[in-house]
């Protein structure tokens, strides 16, 4: 058996843990730079706020219905996600962290008598420990567990836990389940399925496996089998290392000054390099890009990117930040007002899989690696950005977050106050 733990409206729920007065009220959380709505409370969904809608398009609804708006507070959400994972660890020997708000649990070999009760218990303890409502779906396959967890959200009577295993129950659920909501069925496949009259998950299950293979390839077949209760999707409990790392942001105010833009890009590069070393990787290439605001008419527009290959694969702070700034200087055009920039580090390889000679030969490489190590140690101990390369300026990224809540759980100066 597998379980999926899915945090309900996760970012909104994180905000509500510290603001219980917001229970029952419409709340939304905005993306990076206050661009789009990326999390909505049920009340906000009922008001017709769609996932990913740009904030400026719903401003009138926000005012009319007094919707409470938050800028994303990733420090808080990351910490609350960690707390949910810690709690889940008590319930299964291995976890697969699928995303910030979804975790699979492998329940094989667990002496559980009543899976339904177990699901409700996991949900109850998560809520008690962290304040986050979590939907637990338990089923023979990961794909079915995902569907079961969605049922919890539709039916509050399930008390956050749904065990779906009897073939007749599964069939009943799949008959009503839209095929495009099945895990693994993408936006591109859905129209093809619709053309063939396949609208529900049950229609899909009834398809001949060979037809599925012809239409969707092996991934489609996997989904098809999973829906029939045959586990096909591997349980990935080891940390999957990323194949590329992107750090980018749009700016609260457009930037024209070269130095200003350089310091922003240096900060993106520094952050990306830190993440790169954090997963023990080195990179062969980096892309640096900057662009103007395409929504502005009658102003000169530019979108430029530069690919920077590294002579030797690297993860070093000074090398990566230096190369990013050099590339930015090259693509910078003084006539432009830049709205967004970013750094993408690609073609990653695990550091220990790189031929030794590349690193061990040169004294300079050793020294650089020590510098990076020191930077990481200092920043880990004293907080991110405590030690920076000069070009990073004050280390801040000019992004808009007008409605951000305090870092309740990660900054001493932001912990909540109890008035007594």
């Amino acid at each position, binding site marked *: 058996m597998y379980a999926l733990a899915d945090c309900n409206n996760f970012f909104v729920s994180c905000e509500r843990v510290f603001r219980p007065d917001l229970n029952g009220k419409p709340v939304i959380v905005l993306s990076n730079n206050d661009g789009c709505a990326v999390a909505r409370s049920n009340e906000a969904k009922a008001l017709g706020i769609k996932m990913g809608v740009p904030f400026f398009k719903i401003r009138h609804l926000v005012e009319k219905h007094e919707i409470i708006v938050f800028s994303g507070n990733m420090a808080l959400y990351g910490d609350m996600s960690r*707390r949910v994972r810690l709690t889940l660890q008590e319930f299964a020997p291995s976890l697969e962290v699928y995303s910030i708000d979804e975790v699979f649990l492998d329940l094989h070999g667990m002496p559980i008598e009543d899976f339904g009760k177990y699901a409700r218990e996991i949900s109850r303890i998560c809520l*008690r*420990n*962290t304040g986050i409502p979590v939907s637990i779906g338990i089923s023979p396959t990961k794909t079915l567990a995902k569907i079961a967890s969605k049922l919890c959200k539709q039916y509050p009577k399930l008390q956050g836990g749904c065990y779906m295993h009897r073939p007749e129950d599964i069939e009943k659920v799949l008959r009503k389940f839209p095929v495009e909501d099945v895990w693994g069925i993408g936006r591109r496949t859905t129209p093809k399925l619709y053309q063939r009259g396949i609208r529900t998950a049950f229609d899909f299950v009834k398809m001949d496996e060979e037809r599925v293979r012809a239409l969707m390839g092996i991934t489609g077949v996997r989904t098809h089998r999973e829906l029939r209760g045959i586990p096909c999707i591997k349980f990935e409990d080891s940390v999957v290392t990323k194949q590329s790392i992107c750090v980018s942001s749009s700016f609260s105010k457009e930037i024209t000054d070269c130095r200003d833009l350089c310091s922003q890009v240096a900060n993106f590069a520094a952050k990306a390099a830190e993440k790169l070393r954090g997963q023990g990787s080195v990179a062969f290439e980096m892309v640096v890009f900057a662009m103007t605001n395409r929504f502005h008419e009658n102003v000169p527009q530019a979108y430029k990117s530069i690919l920077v290959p590294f002579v030797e694969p690297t993860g070093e702070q000074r090398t990566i930040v230096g190369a990013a700034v050099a590339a930015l200087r090259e693509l910078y055009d003084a006539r432009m007002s830049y709205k967004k920039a970013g750094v993408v580090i690609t073609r990653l390889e695990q550091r220990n899989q790189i031929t030794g000679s590349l690193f061990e030969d040169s004294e300079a490489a050793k020294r650089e690696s020590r510098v990076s190590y020191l930077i990481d140690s200092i920043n880990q101990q004293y907080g991110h950005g405590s030690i920076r390369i000069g070009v990073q300026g004050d280390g801040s990224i000019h992004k808009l977050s007008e409605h951000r809540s305090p870092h309740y759980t990660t900054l001493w100066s932001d912990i*909540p*106050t*109890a008035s*007594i």
Partner: protein
Amino acid sequence: MIPYEIEETLPAENWMVGDVKAGFPSPAEDVHEKLDLIKLLVRNPASTFFFRIDGVSMVDAAMDEGDIIIVDRSMEPFNGCMAVCYIDGGYTVKRVEIHGKELHLLPANESNVSYKPIIVTPDNQFMVWGLVTYVIKKV
């Protein structure tokens, strides 16, 4: 950590690993244990949070203005527990007592009679947010 430089003139077998470069090695070399305050104060990291105290209604319960309290959500509230409560839009810390069908939030400040128990009614938006386990104060 910066690897310490080893003086090159010493033959390899005389090298000492540690802060002592030559001479008798410290018998405490292998002892790496340190007292960890977090381990002492935080029983359940998933459910433990910190709050700052503002006000003086709880001075008799050793909670003074500016203190930091450690709050555990994983413990079930009981009659007489010391709790962070959320009531009508704000947090407070009080001793929670059950009197028949009523919940009373009791202050702890004998010297100031103006602090009266709060009686929670169904009209209040009320929840016990977590139980107070420790108080951190500067002496």
